[in-house]
């Protein structure tokens, strides 16, 4: 089937998502919870785009293309809401994310500076009990990429989402850290993490 992305026509297979079509057309929208090695998750809502004839923005990562779809990555409402969401995400961290992280890059690309929301942030909680992998729980934005890397890519099932609402976070095993879990030290979680909430210890020390 054929869709257009910002006016550029692109041929896509059935069941292709809007996000894949956007990238196939050489365009882009920012994402935080998306990792091409994993099933789409639809949590961050930063990849919102406009589609002609559809009321309101759609998440690009989980919406399948329809033939003839006209996709607008610059849709004003989509960008405004995505920007507001990234500002909310920054507001839950007690410190700004490191400049090299995906979160910091996305924030820069949308022009989000210091968030205006005062109030609660995640409690600082570092766990360096494992020789290679470290948690900085306060940087977790619950994108689920580490959990999916562990479940879908590695099949180790060592990680889980925890809590709910604003208290959501991640844990390994029964929250006893990576070492007391089924972690095989593959590093797939750290590799996918967009905020450095999970890092390889060697990198942390450099």
């Amino acid at each position, binding site marked *: 089937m054929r869709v257009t992305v910002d006016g550029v026509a692109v041929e896509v297979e059935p069941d292709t998502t809007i996000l894949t079509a956007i990238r196939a057309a050489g365009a882009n929208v920012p994402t935080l919870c998306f990792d091409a090695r994993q099933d789409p998750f639809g949590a961050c809502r930063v990849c919102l785009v406009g589609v002609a004839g559809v009321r309101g923005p759609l998440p690009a990562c989980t919406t399948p293309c329809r033939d003839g779809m006209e996709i607008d990555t610059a849709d004003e409402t989509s960008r405004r809401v995505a920007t507001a969401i990234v500002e*909310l995400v920054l507001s*839950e961290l007690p410190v700004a994310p490191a400049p090299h992280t995906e979160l910091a890059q996305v924030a820069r690309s949308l022009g989000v500076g210091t968030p205006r929301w005062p109030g609660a942030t995640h409690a600082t909680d570092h766990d360096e009990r494992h020789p290679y992998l470290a948690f900085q729980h306060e940087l977790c934005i619950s994108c689920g990429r580490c959990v999916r890397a562990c479940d879908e890519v590695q099949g180790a*099932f060592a990680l889980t989402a925890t809590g*709910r609402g604003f208290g959501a976070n991640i844990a390994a095993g029964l929250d006893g850290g990576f070492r007391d879990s089924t972690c095989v030290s593959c590093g797939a979680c750290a590799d996918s993490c967009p905020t450095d909430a999970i890092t390889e210890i060697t990198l942390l020390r450099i």
Partner: protein
Amino acid sequence: MSKNLVELVRRTHEHSAPTALEVLKDAVEARGELTDEDRRAAAAASGLPEAAVYGVSTFYDDLLAPRGRRHLRVCTGTSCFATTANAHVDELREALGLELGERRDDGSVSLAETVCLGFCHSSPAIRDGDLIDAGDAVVERVLAGGTRGASEPEWSSVLAEPVLIRPGTWAGFEHALARHTAESLLEEVKAARVRGRGGAGFPAGDKWAFARASPSEQKFIVANGDEGDPGSYIDKYLMEQNPALVLEGMALAGYAVGADHGFVLTRSEYPLSKPALEQAAASAREDGLLGDDIRGSGFSFDVTVLEGAGSYVVGEETALLACIEGLRGTVSARPPFPAVRGLYGLPTVVNNTETLANIPFIAREGAAAYAALSPGASSGSKLVCFNERFAAPGVYEVRFGTPLRELCEELAGGMRDGRELKALQIGGPLGGILPASQLDVAFDFDQLAELGCMVGHGGIVGFDDRTDMRDLARHLLRFGAHESCGKCFPCRIGLRRAHDMFEERRAVDRASLEQLLEALEVGSLCAHGSGMPAPIRSLLAHFADELGLA
């Protein structure tokens, strides 16, 4: 959660393993709190990875609050708020010297909150162990150790021949087995244009048709008994007073769709629902109406009843399925829809219990008779319920299209104690707030939508002239933030920030609030985040001067 985890659960389910959630619920019931030993036992019994079990154990309210030998749960639902403005919660906290979620050091007493116990006809309500007391002086009784069981609400129908308030007899199912093929029953339900009663109003026949079209050999019917709208006790009535009608609807859905098993998920806040449904299922089995080769038709169907563990969002269909699988009750992006990939990854029809309770009538009397129940309006009849602030609260079966004023003033008798009605919230926490000046509207899907309101699940909560609308905004947003499943970013963070704006007596910056509401409405993954702004928008439209805006 990942597909791999669901596949893991599917394989263990085939071996009749208990779910991790069931094992954890039993452990907390027996010992008052969870230990790692309990979590390991749940992992071993269910086949789930330990990490996944840990995630489950941190998600559900029932697993989190430590329990003393006497465990008190105070209802913080919207009806209880409408009655006391939360004074009952404060009195209980102060008298016990406990905050919500705390247990005395000696383990004698614990206090937790619960939303909602479904005794909205008699608010406020407190649960003492499994005994629920409600009404005047409930706090005094509970503190004096004299907790007594509250009376159940009255129920009645305005129809000469009630459809939903009539005890289920299985006559529709027997009629369908004798006279309908699966296809003709499906066509009848489609023709009846029965819209989902759980909130979204999606045509049930279309959902069934999607599932029927799937080539999968195994399919499931799921009755959603966990809508959980604070202020509604319609599902509670159906599951506890009329469980056979719900089960009959499920069997009919199974017949039409080609499913041989159904699940009901009840709410743990209604401790009598699961036993009532199980008893009704047992007698249906005895009568040969559930089981293998029913009435020699070649159609087999049976039902499993499960109970949730304290989560409002589990009323969303993908989260509901995760809860039945014993996993964290978080929402999944659709597509795929449950009709294509649902429970254990297999095609599943998820219908609200009231939706299913409509099906026996359609099977027996046909689509035309069903449409005629509410002339000139949406098809069928609807259960509504009213909160304690009304003079005659209870469950009523009404016709669509009835003027809202007639429902509130004639049926429910207007406000009690000579109070004046200030506003209504219809259809649950995601429904808009209607000021008392706008009651001249037909009770129906489209008409209410035009006023920013909805039929929703049919709970009608009246607020009288004493209600502080800023407190109401804070009450609703506190509920919203507490119940957010935490998956999508706008809901997870946005509802917390919106609540915080109203938390202290600070002026609320209207522009920031509206930006937040837009992010929630446009960005959220499910109706919880996208719907919570609706009542706040109504408050901004009708009661802006009471909100302390900047």
